[in-house]
């Protein structure tokens, strides 16, 4: 069984970033050069950037009509300088909603790790980019960190809502984004692990209960709250706050909780919000 801890130790021993260890690992795994891997990752980064921009300016609504226009509302308030929680947090919320809305409206996104959780990682990365001087190269490295952690999560637990509930989708995305944020902000490999653990712990038990089975309610807004949790966890880890439970054990716990979760709460739209009176009414109206 692969462990994130092994990569942390290797990075510490060699004095490298965690992303550089993951990059080396993937060059062997995929039998591709560093240059090719960077090119492929750059394609993802470019598509992510476009999805944020598209979502902040789009007037489109989803097929059901339930989703659309919320990113713009948050962004407008931020631009007016009225944000209650600060410019960066509001910016992250707007970006996360933007990408998730683009997804719900059949626009182009990058699954990260899934389509339903596609807004978390771009929101966190581009918010840090807007606030600090980070290069394109550092953004790409941060994506390798995020994806590397994702590999461990997929192997030890799951990144599918049907298998593990929302904790496996938004929870994994938040953990991946938290690790990436720490690296981007200059934190240590150990701190990426702590941030990921703190983020995922905050998401444990979250069920997948989409109204009418659509990737809309509550998925879109959970992208924004997932991005918040990622940033809060990164801030704690960068301050030196440690996770009492190591990341690999948190991932195992997430996997176990997913197995214990009843099927009604795993993407089947047979429980939770989906079966509330309003949830049912939306389903009837739409279908």
């Amino acid at each position, binding site marked *: 069984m692969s462990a994130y801890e092994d990569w942390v130790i290797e990075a510490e021993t060699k004095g490298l970033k965690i992303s550089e260890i*993951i990059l080396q690992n*993937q060059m062997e*795994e*995929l039998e591709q050069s560093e240059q090719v*891997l960077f090119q*492929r*990752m750059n*394609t*993802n980064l470019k*598509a992510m950037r476009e999805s944020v921009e598209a979502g902040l300016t789009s007037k489109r609504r*989803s*097929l*059901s009509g339930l989703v659309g226009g919320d990113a713009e509302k948050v962004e407008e308030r931020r631009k007016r300088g009225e944000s209650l929680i600060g410019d960066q947090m509001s910016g992250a919320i707007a970006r996360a909603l933007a990408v998730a809305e*683009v*997804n*719900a*409206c*059949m*626009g*182009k*996104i*990058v*699954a*990260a*790790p*899934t*389509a*339903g959780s*596609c807004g978390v*990682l771009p929101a966190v990365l581009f918010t840090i980019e807007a606030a600090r001087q980070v290069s394109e190269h550092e953004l790409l490295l941060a*994506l*390798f960190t*995020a*994806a*590397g952690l*994702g*590999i461990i999560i*997929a*192997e030890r637990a*799951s*990144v*599918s809502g*049907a298998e593990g509930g929302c904790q496996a989708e938004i929870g994994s995305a938040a953990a*991946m984004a938290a690790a990436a944020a720490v690296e981007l902000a200059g934190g240590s490999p150990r701190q990426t692990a702590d941030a990921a653990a703190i983020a995922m712990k905050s998401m444990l038990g979250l069920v997948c209960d989409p109204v*009418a*089975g*659509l*990737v*809309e309610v509550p998925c879109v807004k959970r992208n924004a709250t997932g991005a918040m949790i990622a940033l809060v966890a990164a801030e704690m880890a960068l301050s030196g706050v440690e996770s009492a439970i190591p990341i690999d054990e948190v991932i195992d716990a997430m996997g176990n909780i997913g197995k214990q979760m009843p099927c009604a709460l795993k993407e089947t*739209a047979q429980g939770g919000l989906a079966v509330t009176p309003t949830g049912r009414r939306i389903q009837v109206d*739409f*279908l």
Partner: protein
Amino acid sequence: MGKSNVFDLLGPIMVGPSSSHTAGAVRLGAMARRILGEEPIQGTVLLHGSFAKTGKGHGTDLALVAGLLGMAPDDERIPTSLMIAKECGLSLSFQTADLGDVHPNTVKFDLLGKNGGHVVVVGSSIGGGSIVIREINDFHVEIRGDYPTLVILHQDLPGVVAQVTLLLTTAQINIARMLVSREKRGARALMILETDQKIDDASLDLMRKLPRIYQVLAIEQL
């Protein structure tokens, strides 16, 4: 879930909203088109299970049609595929159906091609955009589209499989996976070969001239 790489976790780049109900559906349509081997002009699309129940909100119908038109999962014309189909003269009818004990995200295509070809294809979207084709013209198959694939209709007799694999040996083509099934002993049989290398046209021509080989279809990797 088995061993994955960084691009399984970040990607695919796709038109939303769902990797299984949208991206996977595009790929199913694209595979059906490849199996037909020509431009489809008419067809029936039967939606089963979750495809039938929540397909509308995920644009599953639009995605399947986009695939039939030859689009990829990141094509931004997917939302307008029904209109494009009309312009291209592709006429389709959608119905819901119970296809039995199959994956919840399953679709059955009955397609007619521009040059008169006809094919019935059943396939499932099994998560994360991955797909598997389960049936071609009542034959059980298992095609995932991640390798160049040969679908060969032949007579069930000793040596028929061997002459195909010998030809592949000569062409230096390695078989990754293989499946053989038949209607009954001595009757029509189907062989599915997933290969590491793409098979060249010359070898395909030779294969089509082999005795007791009725039909050879080469499907490109998705």
